[in-house]
């Protein structure tokens, strides 16, 4: 009997479902960053707003990258529904805490997909995911560094203004 399912699609049902879940997660991150950009902008933190706009765009690119991969491998990519986006924050610091939390959760979710791929010996998808792991190194670094500015500079006086000014300068250049 011919193996029609394999001929049609490289991905197993489980991996396809996990990748679709990841598409949703990236879409949710993109929207969450947009909400953060909006909050920062309306509270006068222009540079941070710009930083979150860029982050949102990056998350959207990640989403599309996975989306196209699923399609290229013969699977069905599902355009996700994005709900429950937090739009209000108690403080400037909380925005960055939420951002780091979101990045950690994305890394964890990618690790979960990779674990499943190893189990199934889906090395093709693992190779695809490697790019994301490298990207997460940068994303987590930037989010952590941004949060550290609050401790290094301090929020008193013109502290928040100073933090806002420095957020956009964070660069990760240890791409090895």
């Amino acid at each position, binding site marked *: *009997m*011919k*193996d*029609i*399912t*394999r*001929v*049609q*699609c490289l991905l197993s*049902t489980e991996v396809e479902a996990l990748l679709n879940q990841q598409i949703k997660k990236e879409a949710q991150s993109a929207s969450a960053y947009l909400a953060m950009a909006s909050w920062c902008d309306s509270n006068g933190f222009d540079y941070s707003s710009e930083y979150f706009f860029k982050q949102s765009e990056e998350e959207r690119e990640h989403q599309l990258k996975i989306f196209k991969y699923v399609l290229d491998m013969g699977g*069905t990519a599902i355009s996700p529904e994005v709900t429950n986006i937090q739009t209000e924050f108690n403080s400037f610091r909380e925005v960055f805490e939420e951002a780091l939390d979101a990045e950690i959760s994305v890394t964890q979710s990618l690790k979960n997909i990779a674990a499943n791929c190893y189990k199934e010996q889906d090395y093709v998808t693992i190779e695809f995911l490697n790019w994301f792991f490298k990207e997460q190194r940068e994303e987590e670094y930037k989010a952590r560094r941004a949060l550290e500015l609050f401790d290094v500079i301090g929020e008193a006086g013109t502290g928040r203004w100073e933090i806002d000014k420095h957020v956009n300068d964070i660069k990760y250049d240890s791409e090895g």
Partner: protein
Amino acid sequence: MQNVITEAPVAEFTEVFRTHNGSVFQSDRENCWYIDFVGKLARFDYRSIMKLRKAIYAIDIEALLLNSEITPDLEIVFICACDHCYVLTLLEIIDFKKLLEGTFVMLELNRIIHDRVYRLSV
């Protein structure tokens, strides 16, 4: 007298899985499956059988069982871009799910056999 060599007829369909109430056949030539269930034989290609599986698995059987309202225990399973539509009772849904689960286990097994036996041999 001329010798006529008759070849054995090529099997058009392979049975993938069968339960008491239905069966699924694969046609290698057409790259599709035929599902024989509730007195109806329907053809499904890869995309539509995947959609069918999703639709059937998504039915909350437990919720239907616990539902005490006086409504008919019927579910209409309609798949986009597919000519077929099923109107199933609760028992039929359970049977159909069993049939599809068995089918996909067999297809998975077939993939493993292909991977291990045929695809690795030189």
